[in-house]
């Protein structure tokens, strides 16, 4: 076998392997088990054990289409958990390129699964706001001044649940699904200066740096990437049979199903890396042997 030729293989062949590795497990689901890790369990237990029915959680959609396949399942899982437990949810968005639309789409989708809940009483979408850190700082004083209208244009005072929610003091927790730096701002600005507990659901690309915040107790939970989302799904399914039924719906895309695909493609990538290194070391030894 000519190893040199294998190293110069057309990159489109590699792309085909990756594409096949992605498409086949979508068609033929593997149903691989998902185990949970401490950072995700901490997030789950914070909401499950330390919040009561009627408490308020702020969910901030700080991502867009560039990371939607990772952050959407996290958002869905957290929203479903809150709704199943009777926790009120205030949804906002601080990411300019798509945060608002992701918030609208995911909240509408999950709320439709809980027809007993009422918009404005059990959950509300206050929409997007510019300013990022300025908005975060101002919310400590007044949600109304930052979000005078909700996403549909309803005045703040006309939203029943918001009459009792003035600022961060009336919120028990913020869960931010984030791409980029906004998740860090919740930890190093809002938690540090105003003491609001923060759960961050970052993309896998950003997740490694959040371990430092988690260790320093600036966060109370971390859902890293699609794996983190699948772990949270596992935990809510184990606790709430209603949600387990929902997640078993055929055709519903979940992080757990995504992990099947992830597993196959990871194996392909690992194989490529190992093979590349095998060829490298073999080629390195050849000239020495020739001498």
């Amino acid at each position: 076998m000519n190893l040199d030729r294998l190293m110069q293989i057309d990159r489109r062949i590699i792309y085909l392997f990756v594409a096949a590795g992605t498409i086949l497990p979508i068609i033929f689901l593997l149903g691989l088990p998902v185990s949970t890790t401490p950072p995700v369990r901490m997030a789950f237990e914070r909401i499950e054990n330390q919040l009561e029915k009627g408490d308020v959680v702020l969910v901030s959609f700080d991502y867009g289409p560039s990371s939607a396949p990772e952050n959407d399942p996290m958002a869905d899982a957290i929203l479903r958990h809150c709704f199943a437990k009777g926790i009120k949810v205030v949804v906002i968005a601080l990411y300019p390129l798509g945060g608002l639309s992701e918030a609208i789409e995911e909240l509408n989708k999950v709320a439709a699964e809980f027809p007993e809940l009422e918009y404005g009483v059990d959950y509300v979408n206050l929409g997007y706001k510019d300013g990022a850190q300025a908005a975060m700082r101002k919310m400590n004083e007044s949600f109304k001044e930052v979000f005078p209208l909700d996403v549909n244009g309803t005045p703040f005072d006309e939203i029943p649940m918001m009459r009792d929610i003035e600022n961060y003091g009336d919120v028990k927790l913020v869960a931010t699904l984030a791409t980029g730096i906004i998740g860090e701002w919740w930890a190093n600005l809002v938690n540090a200066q105003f003491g609001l507990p923060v759960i961050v659901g970052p993309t896998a690309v950003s997740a490694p740096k959040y371990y430092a915040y988690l260790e320093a107790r600036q966060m109370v939970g971390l859902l890293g990437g699609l794996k983190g989302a699948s772990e949270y799904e596992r935990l809510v399914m184990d606790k709430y049979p209603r949600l387990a039924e929902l997640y078993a719906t055929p055709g519903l895309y979940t992080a757990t199903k995504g992990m099947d695909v992830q597993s196959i493609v990871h194996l392909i990538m690992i194989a490529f890396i190992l093979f590349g290194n095998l060829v490298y070391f073999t080629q390195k030894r050849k000239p020495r042997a020739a001498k």
Partner: protein
Amino acid sequence: MPGLGTWLAAFFTLCMLSFLYKDNPFFRVAESFFAGLSLGYYIGIVANQTLKPNLVLPLIQDFSANWNLVFAGGLGLMLYFRYIKKVAWVSRWALAVYVGYYVGVNMMQKLHGEVIPQVGDTMLSLSYSGIDTLWNVVMVAGVLSVLVYFYFSAEHKGAVGGISRLGIWFLMVSFGAAFGYTVMGRISLLIGRMVFLVNEWARPLIEAVI
């Protein structure tokens, strides 16, 4: 049969994926259209979600209580003076307030929200109390050696060089972990698009045709 929206989404997805074969006009058109849509999206959300509820409506509905927002609006508009040569210098005033505010906020965020808690949490007990002591040593050694590596005011020779080398090894472990996570992240994005193509476009299309 997939609806019009799904067909449009599938078309754009395939246009983008065509770049994997080679650069082509379909990809370039899709890319340019995306750039235009992004900017149009900004216009929509800024106008609808910030300028209307936080500036325009408060001024219209209760000017006496919100008159100070005129200055905020004025500062915002001043930013656009940079496009008029004669009065471009006016935009510096707005830029000065904007940049000044955010660096001020950032400074406190960095010092109070990052340096102090992170340094505080690194002050771990190194007196023996089981396996945790070993991990504490790892953490303290890691943080200190990485900080020494990034200290370029002293030459990395001798003891400093040795500690700096340990810092590099910690960084390599971290970058390896970051690489692993990045692979995961990128694949997740691909999974999202493929799930759409297979489950929402291809399957219904095949079922409708068959």
